């Protein structure tokens, strides 16, 4: 068994607001293999988004350790973390989070430009990615001119633009109807298979989760169950 790409051990995260303490994560161990597609599921407030935020380095943790590619995130400064995210990670959010003032292509270009890719190269890569998600003809539209499903595809194209090792998706289908949800999930699965990237998807939709290699169930800040999804035996290295 090769070294896991994500190896989080004993993660504890507590939110404090005034007098109330919320134990969002209580001593969670979370391991993902390279190329695996993992769905994190659970009811509202079970800590799935917190898990994603903490493990991806968007949020600090109270104790425990997180290693990505055998490198601990704990010692990194904010700037190092930003760089690290820019190079190795892609994000897809429930509400797409495209910059409304930029066109679809420009949105996809952002991470490329951030990584210092030249403008013409960035442009061609962005168009290529939009083509992969089936939106080559919408490259010059602004987010407001796209439907929800289209916007989410642009977000996926953006997340994949840098060919990151890990793609984090937080409720990627939460704002979509079932047909669009299926399309998006199929797209993610296709990407996962074609490119061999690791996907961590937070969702509470059963049909969505079932499409993953592995399903991690959460409740009250703890991992309650783990089982293989319908897609098991796909690309994940065993």
């Amino acid at each position: 068994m090769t070294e896991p790409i994500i190896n989080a051990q004993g993660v504890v995260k507590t939110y404090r607001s005034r007098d109330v303490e919320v134990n969002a994560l209580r001593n969670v161990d979370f391991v993902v293999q390279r190329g695996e597609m993992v769905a994190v599921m659970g009811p509202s407030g079970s800590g799935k988004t917190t898990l994603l935020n903490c493990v991806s380095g968007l949020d600090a943790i109270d104790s425990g350790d997180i290693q990505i590619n055998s490198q601990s995130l704990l010692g990194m400064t904010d700037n190092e973390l930003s760089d690290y995210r820019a190079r190795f990670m892609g994000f897809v959010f429930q509400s797409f989070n495209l910059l409304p003032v930029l066109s679809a292509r420009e949105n996809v270009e952002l991470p490329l430009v951030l990584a210092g890719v030249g403008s013409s190269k960035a442009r061609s890569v962005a168009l290529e990615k939009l083509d992969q998600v089936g939106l080559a003809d919408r490259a010059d539209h602004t987010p407001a001119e796209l439907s929800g499903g289209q916007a989410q595809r642009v977000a996926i194209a953006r997340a994949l633009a840098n060919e990151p090792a890990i793609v984090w998706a937080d409720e990627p289908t939460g704002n979509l109807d079932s047909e669009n949800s299926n399309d998006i999930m199929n797209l993610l699965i296709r990407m996962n298979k074609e490119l061999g990237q690791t996907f961590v998807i937070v969702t509470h939709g059963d049909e969505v989760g079932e499409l993953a290699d592995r399903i991690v169930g959460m409740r009250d800040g703890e991992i309650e169950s783990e089982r293989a999804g319908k897609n098991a035996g796909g690309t994940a290295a065993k």
Partner: protein
Amino acid sequence: MREFFGRDMEMLATVLAILLIISLGTVLFLAFRNRILVKLALRNIPRRPAQTILIVVGLMLSTTIISASLAIGDTVAISIRSAVLDALGNTDIRIRTTTAAVGGDGSITDDTYLQPEQIQTVLDTTAGNSNIDGVLPQVREILPVLDNRTQLTEARMNVVGFDAARTDGFGPITTIDGQQTAVSDLAAGEVFLNESAADEIEAQAGDSLTLVSPSGRHDFTLRAVVREGGLAANDDRLIMSLSDMQRIMGREGQVNRIDVSLLGGREGPADLSEEVADDLRILFTDDAVADQLFQTLSDPAVISAIEQRIADNPGNTISPSRKTDLEEYVSLLKSGSSESERFRLLTLNQAVSGQVIAAVESAGLSDLVLPITFMYFQASTLFIDELKQSGLEAAELFGNLFTTFFSIFGSFSIIVGLLLIFLVFVMLAAERAAEMGIARAVGTKRRHLVQMFTFEGVAYSVGAAIIGTIVGIIASGGLVALLVNAIGAADDGFEFKFSLTATSLIAGFSLGLLLTLATVAVSAYRVSKLNIVVAIRGLPPEFIPSETVPLKQRFQNIGKALISPLWLLFVLLTDRVEDKHRGGTIRAFFRSFLIIPIFWRIILSIWQMFSPYLNTGLPQLVLGGLGVAATVISDRTDTDNFFHTSFFFSMSASLFLVGVGQVFRHQIRNRGYRQEVADRVGFTLMGGLLLVLWLLPFNALNWLTGELGGGIEMFIISGVWMVASAVWVVMYNADLIAKAAQGTFGRITTLRPILKPAIAYPTSSRFRTGLTVAMFALVIFTMMVFSILNNLGTNILDSPDQATGGFEVRAETSQELPISDITTAIDAAPGLNRADFPVIASSAVVFAEARQEGAEELRFLSVPVVGVDDSYLRNARFEMSHYDPSYLPAGIDTDDEVAVSRAIWDRLLADPTLAIVSNSLLEQSAGGFNLGPSGFEVEGIAQNDDEEIEAFQISIRQPLGLGGTAERTVIAATTAFAGQYEAEDGDAVRAITMNATVFDEISDWPVPFTTHRFQLADGVDPGRITAQMETAFLDNSLLATDMIDEIQDSLDQNNAFTRLFQAFMGLGLVVGVTALGVLSFRAVVERRVSIGMMRAIGYKSRMIQVQFLLESVFVTVLGTALGLGLGAYLSWNLVKDLRDSFDGLNYSIPWLSVAVIVIIAIVASLLTTLIPARQASRIYPSEALRYE
């Protein structure tokens, strides 16, 4: 009467206060009815303290600027007023001989002294008048004084001899030790000095003083130094007994003025002045002359001549009030008698007599002209001067001028301030969009939202108006302190003292608050038009589909709105009956405030009726076109015609162009192009056309419209239009700028990821960014125009000869003690070396009258005539702005201004019948201020005409035709710089200059030279030599001036004033910067999630911060660049217009000031953005994303 833009201040303050009370009353009433809404509204205020502070700062600025300009006006008015009162004390009216009245102090045509029998008549006639509490005969002359102990001299001391027995009613004299004293305490040979005079020569009580009078040197002892004010006035003054004064002047029994004090002391009841003065005027009318005049004028030929003149009204010299006077005069001549008071008063009215003489002259009754002129002259035996009244009126006038000046320039900042208020509320609305959308969804009515918003706005506004007024007062206090610094030590007893009247305070507060409230109401209305779905989902407002109410419903709305007043009436009436027992009247009173929303509703329904058609552009096109046509066909000679003003024409033309743009936009849209394309083409076309219209040189369209009337308001209006249309064009084409910026800076790898969003954000929200850019552009625009215009004058030191004529020193002696031959006198004077003065030139001024041949104005009007000696003509280097080329030698290079001017002076030297006029005697260019006295003016040549003119003839004579008449040919006009800095007698700035031989023709007495100009040898220090000259010529009361020093002083004052003004304009910059702060704070809130996302995909926190700063810089730089460009262009236009009258005006951009302005603008906006930018950069990605 204090005025604000031509409106009576007290009236204005009252009206504004009432309006304010009504508006606030309405709001209070609504608040009372909907207390829950008030609670909801007010709870927002403490939620974000930083934002609340910014809002209050933004709202207060308009009030601050208004209050500051009113306070500055008050300060000027009250300072002048107190200077007038200090100078006059209890004196209200001054009685002088009539000649002194006509010629002013410079007159030499007749004796200015009253004879003993005249004095007695005055004392007798005034004795019975119960309004008069004092009559004081006196002699005042300007004489040199030497303190024998300190050996210091004052060349120009006001020496006054008072009749010791008659000082009652004029207040006490107090020594500096606080002792009461009186003129009667002076023994023979004793004098008082007031404090400022004593300071000049460092005199102490007991000093021996030497006075020089025409009869020689006289020694006096200083009895005491006395406090200023009252009889001791506030100039440099020496007081002695009347008998001593008469003795040293050789005027036994005579006085040259009699002061009259009315009841009420120093501040005296103003309304008495005219009444008493008229009484005196009638009393001092010569019965025989009045009767003779009446007989002559009642000749039917004369009467019809006057009637003809009233009907013709040549050159519009007869104003409506004069017309009434003249008509009354005619009817008195037809039916009245010479004894009627009205006839006498009108006879003494110089406007009436001038018109009568002109009427007689133009009717060809030439043998009657001189007799009538003489009778008018002799009709009044004494001149009654309402000194205090006119002084106080002048104080008001200057105060009004300052207020107007500061408000006009301040109005840019006020407009900017109002834009900011609007922006603030649009921002607030955006912030609450979701909240309000939900409120609407659960059934809140639109008007409740408007009310809620208004309540919150009113709360902010009232607080801001209070703070704004206070800050305005503090700011104006600071500005006045700067002004005092600028003007330097108090000259002539004048001092700026900070003052503020309650009227101004109320007017400033009310106007500021009303403007704020109005803007709040408009913003609230705009805010309430939100689409519920859009608001809840947080979509960009561009996606609100514009809802067009069906025609039928629009008609119904108008109907309902018109009926609502009746409903109100009904409610009021029924309410009264029902609520009789529960304070119903009070409720009814408050309910009557509902008239405002009802009125508003009517206007709104009418607007809604027509607004859908505005999109097609046709109404604007038609209305604007009609307006332009109205101007073109309107009567060009009628100066009061509103259709023929610049304002009306340019507004119509603009409306027309707006229509053109709209039509294009509408048509493009109808052809099926995307809205975006249609907007871009239509609005770019509209903005571009408007920009071209407003950028045209001022007279560019005169071929179409003729010369249009217009005033200073056009400056504000054209500035606003220019900036607005430029911003319009830029905002609809911002993507081009974005591309250019990216092309330029995009190569820097670290900037690239930031640059794109930093430009995309501001360019995508046109409204906000456009407003902010416009704010910056307007402020920078004004500052730029002002800097450039101010820079014009400072170039004079590069070629000072234009102002000094090449004479470094200018010296004046008094009329009574002239130096008959200055060259010989310098040779003889101890301590002066003739070799130091290689060129000496002399001149004299006589206050004469002139008439231009062939002009519409037939009257002789007063003008100073300067007669100069040959040396002056040989050496003067004043330059010409206009000249008749036929008087130039053949082959002269007309581009060489120095050579042309020299050639003109040489012609005057060769031919004494030639003359030169001052530039300021030429016609004013259109739109200019004319504050000068009404006197002689050249017709047919304007200051901004071409250099080449045709010579014309003038006749010159002494006032009222005394002495002979001289004919002269005017061949040139000097530039406006000539004589501009000769502070001592500013009259020479508006004079006719010629060979002194003219005095032989027009004066029966020899006229001595009283002004001498000197060129100095190399290495002679002008400062030292002027001091030596004053000492050497003490007996002639000589005052010598170092001209370069004088110009420098004047420029320094000017510069100080400019800095003061720029500080005032800086308030506007504060508005712009605050706007940026508001925008940035808002952006942080609005873009929280986006920022979180950007951080998630790898943007470092520093990059976010830089991105925010870049956005501000982008807006600032855009606004600043527009303002600089437009300001530079408008000033260039102005300078081109002015250049014709001020030869050698250089258009140059003061780069240093520009750099300072730009740097301040950018640094200030960076600083305001820094806090929100740091806030943005600190957003933790997971935190931000949680808001999803």
